[in-house]
């Protein structure tokens, strides 16, 4: 049985939603064709990687160190102001990167790429633990995630695991082989954080086929991998634990060098047990918290056969009838809710990029926090929750309602007629009660707000 292609469902479930000039994709083939083609959204709204981000982490660290060194001297005040200027510039960079990310999602014809980027960035979730890293989270996505969402999974594992932002977040930068030169001289030891999350979250799942012994062995294998704020990624032989390590039954070369680490990571990421975990996470994210086993099995099969070709896996998902169940059990995450709302309103890229800082604070940063998704601050390396109940809480829903009623008039003038907006935002099958509510509201703002608040808009 073939189900006729539904552009509205495609835009909701696998995209950023509908808009006045975005009626939804034409077919699965068209979606895959866009995804296989050039990344137009990134070309239009470029976001630098970590090494190109301005100000650099090194500039800031040097300024902070100079200020500390001048404590109690007459130069201290001037150096404090210099450091403050860097902090301010880093905040501006972080805001601009955020607004460009939103602008991409709001204006793109290739919404699936934005959704995949959100998904994979969450799979390899990071958080800034110090101020210096706050403006490096989006650059991390530029470097390690986005280039690989239609590439090979092992390449993404390599890029994310060895990125300075990840190395700092999961403490790898301090992990030292106890028998390495530095470990012996200074009494430093292992930190297993990255090794554990790599096995548990990134590769195999919490019930995956590994033991504590494997975690420790992998942590030993990863020693030497660190970062240096001047040059970024670094490999320090004098911190690497000597000797061979055995992880999940496979022995990796006794040679303590970066190539050993890289080939071990690639090898782990290519193991067949990874496929189930990744397939299941993809289906849970895009389709249902209770994934259809046949769908997961199909994706896992393609993942294994292709060695983790993510374009092929994504295509397999879109081609499977179970991915198109009309039941919408997922709810848009707050960041996606905001993006989809601005897209439905037809806000253009400049309208987003030119947001006043005070509006950005009042209508982006604070509302996201109230909705339960403080910007770039997931509570742990397991990322944001998937289930609707975690998001549609009293406070979370109140946050969505307040945003829906208040933000559109800040972002757009004049607002569209709510009676037309129902069709634009929800497509041809808008529920009758939402159509009625939109036409019965006392003001345009409230009419728009009601449409955006409706489960028909929020569920995907």
């Amino acid at each position, binding site marked *: 049985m073939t189900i006729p292609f539904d552009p509205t469902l495609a835009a909701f479930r696998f995209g950023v939603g509908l808009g006045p000039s975005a009626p939804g994709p034409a077919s699965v083939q068209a979606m895959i064709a866009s995804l296989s083609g050039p990344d137009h959204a990134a070309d239009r709204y470029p976001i630098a990687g970590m090494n190109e981000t301005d100000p650099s982490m090194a500039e800031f660290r040097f300024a902070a160190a100079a200020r500390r060194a001048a404590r109690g001297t007459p130069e201290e005040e001037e150096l404090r102001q210099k450091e403050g200027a860097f902090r301010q510039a880093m905040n501006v960079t972080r805001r601009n990167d955020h607004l460009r990310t939103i602008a991409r999602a709001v204006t793109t014809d290739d919404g699936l790429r934005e959704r995949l980027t959100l998904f994979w960035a969450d799979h390899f979730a990071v958080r800034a633990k110090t101020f210096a890293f706050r403006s490096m989270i989006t650059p991390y996505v530029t470097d390690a995630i986005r280039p690989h969402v239609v590439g090979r999974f092992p390449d993404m594992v390599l890029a994310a695991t060895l990125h300075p932002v990840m190395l700092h977040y999961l403490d790898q930068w301090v992990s030292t082989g106890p028998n390495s030169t530095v470990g012996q001289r200074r009494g430093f030891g292992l930190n297993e954080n990255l090794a554990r999350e790599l096995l548990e979250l990134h590769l195999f799942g919490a019930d995956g086929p590994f033991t504590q012994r494997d975690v420790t062995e992998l942590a030993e294998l990863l020693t030497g991998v660190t970062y240096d704020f001047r040059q970024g990624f670094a490999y320090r032989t004098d911190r690497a634990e000597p000797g061979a390590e055995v992880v999940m039954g496979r022995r990796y070369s006794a040679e303590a060098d970066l190539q050993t680490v890289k080939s071990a990571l690639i090898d782990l990421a290519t193991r067949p047990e990874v496929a189930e975990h990744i397939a299941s996470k993809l289906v849970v994210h895009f389709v249902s918290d209770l994934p259809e086993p046949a769908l997961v099995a199909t994706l896992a099969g393609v993942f294994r056969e292709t060695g983790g070709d993510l374009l092929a896996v994504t295509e397999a998902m879109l081609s499977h009838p179970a991915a198109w169940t009309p039941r919408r059990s997922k709810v848009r995450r707050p960041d996606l809710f905001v993006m989809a709302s601005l897209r439905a309103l037809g806000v253009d890229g400049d309208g987003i990029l030119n947001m006043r800082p005070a509006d950005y604070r009042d209508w982006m940063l604070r509302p996201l926090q109230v909705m339960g998704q403080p910007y770039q601050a997931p509570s742990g390396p397991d990322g944001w929750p998937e289930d609707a109940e975690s998001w549609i809480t*009293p406070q979370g829903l109140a946050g969505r309602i307040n945003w829906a009623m208040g933000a559109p008039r800040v972002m757009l003038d004049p607002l569209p007629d709510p009676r037309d907006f129902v069709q634009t935002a929800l497509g041809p099958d808008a529920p009758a009660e939402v159509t009625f509510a939109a036409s019965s509201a006392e003001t345009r703002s409230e009419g728009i707000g009601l449409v955006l608040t409706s489960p028909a808009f929020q569920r995907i």
Partner: protein
Amino acid sequence: MDRRAFLTRSLALGCSLAASPLVTPVALAQGPWDARLVVIVLRGGLDGLDVIRPIGDTDLARLRPRLMETAGLGLNDAWALHPGLSGLRALWDAGQFGALHATSSPYRGPRSHFDAQDVLEAGTFPAGETRSGWLNRMLGIVPGMTAETAYSVGHEQMKILSGTNPYLQWSPRSELDLSPQSRRLLDLILHDDPIFRDAALRAVDIADTLFTEATADAEEAGADGEMGMMMAPAPTRGHAGVAAFAAQRLRAETRIASFSLHGWDTHSRQDIQLNSALENLTETILTLRDGLGPVWEQTAVLCMTEFGRTAHENGTLGTDHGTGGAMLFAGGALRGGQVLGRWPGLAEADLFDRRDLMPTSDVRAAAGRVMQDLFGLSRSDIEDTIFPGLDMADAPRLAV
């Protein structure tokens, strides 16, 4: 209640005001216990040595010559309160405000706020051993808990309460200011989706009780007539707003509330910074006491921080990240008016890493003992589930 009309119910508020449980001064609802627990996370690293000053220790003046220039409020020969706590002095004397000194969480990492707060809130070390907060695990032990039992207040994520057991979060900032017509229409569009309907029901309920209370306060004030007699309305903004809201929920069905206070990371000009942070804390605790009314007698407030600060003052009249520090506590259910804990001394050799106050207790043991005494939880539940790996053998008793 007719669910069909849930969102518009408050249109009839005028005539149903007397029936609202929130106009009644105390509404003791069904709950697993009557005692209340408030955990305030002091984010940034409270300087226990400055707040509860060990003036009986002769090394203090050597370590902190400049910080000790402003006199504290002497309690006895051994201890003095920071002058910023003058507003809580009466509570101290009444035995409703006290401190546990030279304590810390089990965190001993490189003094990172982020990691140390994770450990404090997870209640385990390392924090990654669990993906839930210790207050949330506590909820799982006791049958009969509802979402209303525990509240995380404020817009901040409180990992201490996060986990699989239900709890509610509300920020006084997320008021729902909707026109009656919008409410009717929201009712219409959310009605058929249970998750949305139930969340909206609760959201509107919380927003309305806040509104009702403000109205009741205003009416009461109006009835008194004289301008000068006007009762101050319950605060709605900032830390006092958070405390007022927490008190209001705790007077009803809520038994556990948690929120954060900021401003403790006093690397420089500690004399000014700490003073204003302590004034905020004072206002928070007094707002809780006033808002709780008679329930204050059954309440325990624990103020915990991620780490203490260096024993030496630094070159900018501040202190840097340290290890041991103080837990402050308040409430009618606790025995305040005293400084608990074994004092390790401040001589160079007595310090942790030769720089920080040496912790002589695990702050989790004190919190565990409070839960044991107030809520009747078993020691094994506390040592196995709430704080895995903790030994409560020497836990100080804080409860009355």
